[in-house]
């Protein structure tokens, strides 16, 4: 097999709660520090300890960091999943396993090289304490991989130094465990493998960060002061990060008190209610949740829409419906969020494609929520939110000032004859609002019941409808203000691909691969809803359009069809919805199949295709 330098993938199978995370981080960060583009996908179970968990790492010199289902090397540390893990090694690949105990014969595969390392035995001999042995066994396999892939030891040592610097004892045992694995591999296998690494300079000015952390930073920088939430995977780490950041960055120098309020609510109904209450008095407030939380928030979302109160809601999507698979990803809440709550409603959605956009769109969400005086959703997903992605360093424009929209000051109110809350004075569908406590003239009665343009209670059809018609205009006008779609045209393209959110990197790679197969595809990535005109234009410009998304029913296709008028069937569904991050191969194979061209490889069994709408 010819060398494949800086272009391969491997997978580590362990048991959760055994501390493999630190070993996997060590490897991933080591690769990143060697200047090589890298990505990691953590496939963990919805429990705390003792169940199978996998960590997938992809190394790609061209910067393709989407998930790939083709594993050159698998490290099988969990006997419970041996069979499955062995089966996942690609033909001609390698399986690393703990040879302390013999491997069951039925697992043998003659198209795979088995690399046995007596990890348990070695750690047993060199370390005391069962817990320590278990933990260090992970560092030991990291050492094995470092040898197999020819990783730079100093880089790994430096990382251990940074992690355990102060804790001398831990540092030593980790360095030793790393060397145990590394030395054993170098002595017993001919290292490096054909799949190996060579230093590059492709990660300078980049960082490795997950979307929830980036979104939390965005909230800090946007000036959010109130966060109300209820824990739920995969959104919990967003508020955790916000709390951590504000403890440092929002501490009042004199008193040591916080310029922030993080309220752990009793449930999601209360959480979003608190956000609406805080926004009502003029704060920038947000909540973060997942699908089940949005369902519970539905009534309040309708209140926010109709009473025109800003609110920022992060929905870090997980696999639904119901409790579903809390630790698997999906894009299954698009349709619900777009029209959440009873009656006629429509909501602004921002859909980031990576952690960089989680940061950027978090800031945009507060601006849009205040400008349009309405709840705004940031629709992230578990893959973006909880996995570390490689992105260019985040920049902040210090001249940025919040767009508070039309909020009347005491001075403005003082000068007014009479304040009318819901009158469209400027003809842009947006009426000026007031904040409680600012000025007596600004007082009015906020209500979710029928009201006329003065905010007065009404049961009159015409008065009610006048407000509702303006609301429709207001939300539609947001199309020009949500993040514009990202469009990539290829000269002479024959088909168009539309996608969204976390599918982005897989689609980018797929477009390249399709071109290699003679299929030139233009690409548009939706980033906001209501859709900018560019979306309809893109559709009009292509007679075949594939819509790539990760849900069963093609919810993005639904929204596009409804809002642009393009027939639903003209939008051909592509994607998977089984909970795994999308891979380029999923896209390529399904597009080729649709075009009647032979697939480039067999499709992976675990990624079922979508049900055509």
């Amino acid at each position: 097999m010819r060398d494949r330098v800086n272009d391969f993938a491997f997978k580590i199978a362990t048991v959760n709660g055994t501390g493999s995370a630190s070993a996997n981080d060590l490897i991933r960060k080591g690769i990143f520090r060697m200047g090589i583009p890298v990505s990691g996908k953590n496939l963990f179970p919805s429990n705390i300890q003792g169940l199978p968990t996998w960590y997938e790492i992809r190394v790609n010199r061209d910067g393709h960091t989407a998930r790939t289902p083709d594993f050159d090397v698998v490290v099988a540390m969990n006997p419970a999943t041996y069979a499955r893990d062995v089966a996942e090694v690609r033909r001609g690949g390698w399986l690393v396993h703990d040879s302390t105990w013999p491997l069951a014969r039925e697992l043998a595969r003659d198209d795979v090289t088995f690399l046995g390392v007596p990890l348990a035995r070695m750690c047993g001999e060199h370390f005391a304490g069962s817990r320590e042995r278990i933990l260090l066994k992970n560092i030991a396999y990291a050492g094995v991989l470092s040898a197999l892939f020819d990783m730079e030891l100093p880089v790994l040592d430096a990382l251990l130094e940074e992690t355990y610097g102060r804790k001398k004892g831990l540092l030593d045992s980790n360095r030793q465990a790393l060397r145990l694995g590394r030395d054993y591999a170098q002595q017993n296998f001919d290292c490096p493998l054909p799949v190996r690494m060579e230093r590059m300079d492709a990660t300078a000015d980049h960082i490795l960060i997950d979307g929830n952390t980036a979104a939390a930073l965005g909230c800090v920088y946007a000036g959010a002061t109130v966060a109300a939430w209820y824990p739920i995977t995969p959104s919990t780490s967003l508020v955790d990060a916000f709390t951590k950041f504000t403890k440092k960055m929002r501490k009042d120098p004199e008193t040591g008190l916080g310029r922030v309020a993080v309220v752990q609510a009793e449930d999601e109904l209360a959480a979003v209610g608190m956000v609406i209450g805080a926004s009502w008095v003029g704060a920038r407030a947000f909540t973060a949740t997942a699908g089940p939380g949005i369902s519970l928030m539905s009534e309040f979302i309708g209140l926010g829409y109709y009473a025109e109160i800003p609110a920022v809601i992060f929905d870090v999507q997980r696999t639904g419906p119901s409790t579903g698979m809390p630790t698997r990803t999906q894009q299954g809440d698009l349709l619900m969020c777009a029209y959440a709550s009873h009656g006629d409603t429509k909501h602004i959605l921002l859909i980031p494609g990576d952690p960089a956009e989680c940061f950027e769109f978090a800031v945009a969400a507060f601006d849009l929520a205040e400008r349009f005086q309405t709840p705004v959703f940031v629709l992230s997903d578990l893959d973006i939110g909880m996995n570390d992605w490689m992105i260019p360093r985040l920049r902040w424009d210090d001249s940025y000032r919040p767009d508070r929209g039309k909020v009347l000051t005491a001075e403005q109110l003082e000068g007014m004859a009479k304040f009318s809350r819901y009158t469209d004075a400027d003809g842009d569908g947006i009426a000026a609002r007031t904040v409680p406590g600012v000025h007596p003239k600004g007082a009015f009665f906020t209500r979710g019941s029928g009201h006329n343009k003065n905010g007065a209670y009404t049961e009159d059809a015409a008065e009610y409808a006048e407000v509702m018609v303006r609301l429709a205009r207001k939300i539609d006008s947001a199309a020009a203000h949500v993040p514009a779609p990202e469009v990539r045209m290829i000269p002479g393209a024959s088909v168009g691909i539309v996608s969204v959110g976390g599918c982005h990197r897989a689609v980018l790679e797929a477009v390249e691969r399709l071109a290699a197969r003679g299929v030139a595809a233009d690409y548009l990535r939706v980033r906001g809803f209501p859709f900018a005109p560019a979306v309809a234009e893109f559709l009009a410009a292509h007679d075949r359009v594939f819509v790539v998304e990760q849900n069963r029913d093609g919810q993005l296709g639904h929204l596009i069809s409804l809002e642009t008028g393009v027939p639903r069937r003209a939008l051909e569904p592509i994607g998977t919805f089984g909970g795994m991050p999308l891979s380029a191969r999923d896209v390529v194979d399904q597009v080729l199949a649709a075009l009647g061209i032979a697939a480039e490889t067999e499709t992976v069994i675990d990624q079922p295709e979508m049900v055509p709408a």
Partner: protein
Amino acid sequence: MTYIAKPKVRHPKLPVNILGLTARDYEGAMSTLCAGCGHDSVTAAIVQAVFELGIEPHRIAKLSGIGCSSKTPAYFVQQAHGFNSVHGRMPAIATGASAANRDLVYLGVSGDGDSLSIGLGQLCHAIRRNVNMLYLIENNGVYGLTKGQFSASADVGSKAKRGEENVQPPIDPVLLALTLGATFVARGFSGDKAQLVPILKAGMQHRGLALVDIISPCVTFNDHEGSTKSYLHTREHAQPVVIADFVPHAREITAEYAPGSVRAVTLHDGSVVNFRKVAEDYDPTDRDGAHAYLMERQRAGEVATGLLYIDPAAADMNATLGSVHRPLVDLSFTDLCPGDAALQALQDTYR
């Protein structure tokens, strides 16, 4: 129709408060409730209390859920911001608002259905957080606005208008609040304004959640013979336990009581509540004692009223959240945004 404001002719002889405003200035829109509804009397008591306290109208935030009771914020303090939210969820709105702007006076009005059925969880957690607000439950034992179904506060044996008896034990917001660690618990009767006004004033000055359960009869659906929330039944069974006189911090405490007969409790802002005992050795600062006493009174079929428990020292939500003393809404953006330099420094740790 709430937008028909009443003519505000200034009567020269009307008394004015420290702000130079008359009681009229604290009135609201015309009530759309049934003539005789207890809720309208509570509205009148609120108007008098805020007038006497001399609170700037626009510094008051009026909050409610949904129900006849929840409509009442439209009927007082026209110049205060109001929020008639959704059913049972007013506590969450108040919690978020208070977290964002701790300096407004939060006045929440709810009903027994709004707070003890759909909103029970939120009420309990607002009490637990000790959100700094006055929380009124206009308690009539029924869902008025939906035409008279029993609420969770209906007493066992109380008869509905159509005759059927309630069979489920009632949830008593006063006992519940005491059990949950509430820091200010009172019970009043819409028909006894003299008792109610000082309680409302003390409740508004109390730092923390002041829960006032107010028996407020529904004349249309629950004021008949056999109802235990009727005017008649309440008049016959209401028993003041303590009499609370409110003395604003402004005024000097005049020794108008016989020594020993009074227990004075000082609130955060320096105002004082003087408790004159009615029931023998009832101590409004002894939570366990109060709870035991009230359980026993309840068993005796009595409705104990008054400012029943107070703990002026407890930390309110803003304190437990550790937020700065300045309202968060008043912080400037530069106080909130760390800037690019900090962002770049932070990101060095993400490599």
